[in-house]
């Protein structure tokens, strides 16, 4: 039982986040109008309990983080060398997709997403990825719009098909 020497900032931040979230839930619960009616328990009791629960969990995890780190965390060497570039590229892909899907349509947005995710995973063949992406996006588009009746944005192809 050797306690880890340094305090892990991530653990402390999550614990703090839970306390903030729990306090916010408790605070926000006061804005729920309490109806006086036939029901003995109104819409406030459960939110209060959940807010308290979140705060307490955050407090316990915060104490653990300050006293030797969270308990029983499996050590994983892979965690020592995160690849934040990959994280960034994939996040960019998801956010870009969200921004463009409304006006560029499903096919273009999904193609961009596919190529960026593949890049994030270290693919060095953007042309191959783009070809697969277009084929997949077109197939999925027709499968879901014509086959399942889902309504997906067409973007510039409006009126083309």
């Amino acid at each position, binding site marked *: 039982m050797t306690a880890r020497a340094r305090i892990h900032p991530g653990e402390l931040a999550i614990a703090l986040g839970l306390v903030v979230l729990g306090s916010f839930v408790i605070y926000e619960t006061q804005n729920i109008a309490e109806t006086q009616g036939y029901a003995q328990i109104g819409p406030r009791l459960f939110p209060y309990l959940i807010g308290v629960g979140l705060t307490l969990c955050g407090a316990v995890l915060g104490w653990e983080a300050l006293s030797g780190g969270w*308990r029983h965390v499996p050590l994983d060497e892979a965690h020592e060398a995160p690849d934040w570039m990959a994280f960034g590229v994939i996040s960019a892909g998801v956010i870009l997709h969200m921004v463009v899907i409304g006006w560029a349509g499903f096919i273009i947005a*999904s193609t961009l*997403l596919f190529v960026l995710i593949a890049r994030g995973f270290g693919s060095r063949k953007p042309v191959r990825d783009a070809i697969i992406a277009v084929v997949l996006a077109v197939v999925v588009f027709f499968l879901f719009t014509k086959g399942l009746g*889902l309504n997906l944005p067409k973007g510039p192809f409006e009126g083309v098909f």
Partner: protein
Amino acid sequence: MDTFNALLTGFAVALSLQNLMWGFLGVTLGTAVGVLPGVGPALTIALLLPATAKLDPTGALIMFAGIYYGAMFGGSTTSILLNTPGESATIVTAMEGNLMAKRGRAGPALATSAIGSFVAGTLATILLTVMAPVIVDLALKFGPAEYFAVMVLAFTTVSAVLGASAARGLASLFFGLMIGLIGLDSQTGQARFALGIPELLDGIDVVVVAVGLFAVGETLYIATYFNRESDKLEKMKGSIWMSRDDWRRSWKPWLRGTALGFPFGTIPAGGAEIPTFLSYAIEKKLTKRPEDFGKGAIEGVAGPEAANNASATGTLVPLLTLGLPTTATAAIILAAFQQWGLQPGPLLFETQPALIWGLIASMYIGNVILLILNLPLVGIWVKLLEIPRPLLYAGILIFATLGAYGLRNSWFDLALLYGVGLIGFLMRRYDIPVAPVLVGMILGPLAEQQFRRALAISQGDLMIFLKQPISATVLAITALVIIGPPIWRRIAARRAPRAQAPKG
């Protein structure tokens, strides 16, 4: 007798051409997502929820159940050939199974897991058939107080008892419960935690949460931490068939695995990980050839594989009879029932017997199809493992974003999806279990409803939960489950130094 008749009616439903097709589609999809690392049954069913809302519930639920237990079959293939578990429930299979493959015995390893899964799945379905009516009879006596008590028990076991840390499990559960609060209160129609955002009045859709945690979060996590080493796919050499010796060494572990897995599935203890680990430990202890363990012992594959399948079927017992989900996938299947306005529980056995018994009967058929899919046709699934990782995850994300956006064509759901994905990433990184989020989110609103109903009946007297014998018993068990393990650990810790004392 009644059960037998009900089951026959069920077979009439399950054997209709349409339902056979849904069942076949389900187990095929299940095997595929089981084989593919990075996609699991919970994610797959969540993605299919919006697309199936207009279908006949019987067929769609037959498909969902097929995906669930089909994934248990498929997961073992990945574990054996790639040493990367296809599913969390097949981690143990990866240990001995991959060693067998390395020694050129991939065939028998795949065979013992497929046949073991079939044996366990079928036995567990028989147990489900026999047990369900008994539990339904008991559950018909349940009032709101009893339902609330069993839900509290499920919350406790899913989050606090199993897993590495009660604090992290509970944090995850409360987070899920909080998500479940968002939207209109079911009893008074009051908006809660909508923060003035109109999109939040409908609540956060389970699809967004499940897909965010399992697809976006998982993708970010794997890309950030685990994209350096490349996987080594073991070749399938030699015969797929098991020798007489393999059979002799496998059949007892299959039965023991079933006996372990099924009860673990039925009690609200969630997850197939624990019974598979237990099964592995037991087989290691009981084997006549302990020297084989660590070098590829077939017992170490046969037992855990039977256990995870029996456990998956076992989780359907509380789900169908009480409406109690104990795993992430079961929680999503409960959400599926809800999208047709159905609430699993004893009443559903009376109002929708064709649906319930059709679903149960379909599982007998599904297990036979799975045996064929995973034994003679295993070569097809192995091809799936050759998909390069960048393309696999890029494809997963296309479907993930489609699932979230398709709900109501709103970028808001995509923003939520990424937000939940970031949380999922942190949870994976810091070893916080994900399943309690989904169980809390889906079961939470139902628990609140039962709690308020119980207190409306008792005129606000909280003692109602302790006065009713069933709910008092269940709550006592819950308390025991919380207090028991720490006390046990303390006793064990006190004993340990004493045992070592003479040496030191």
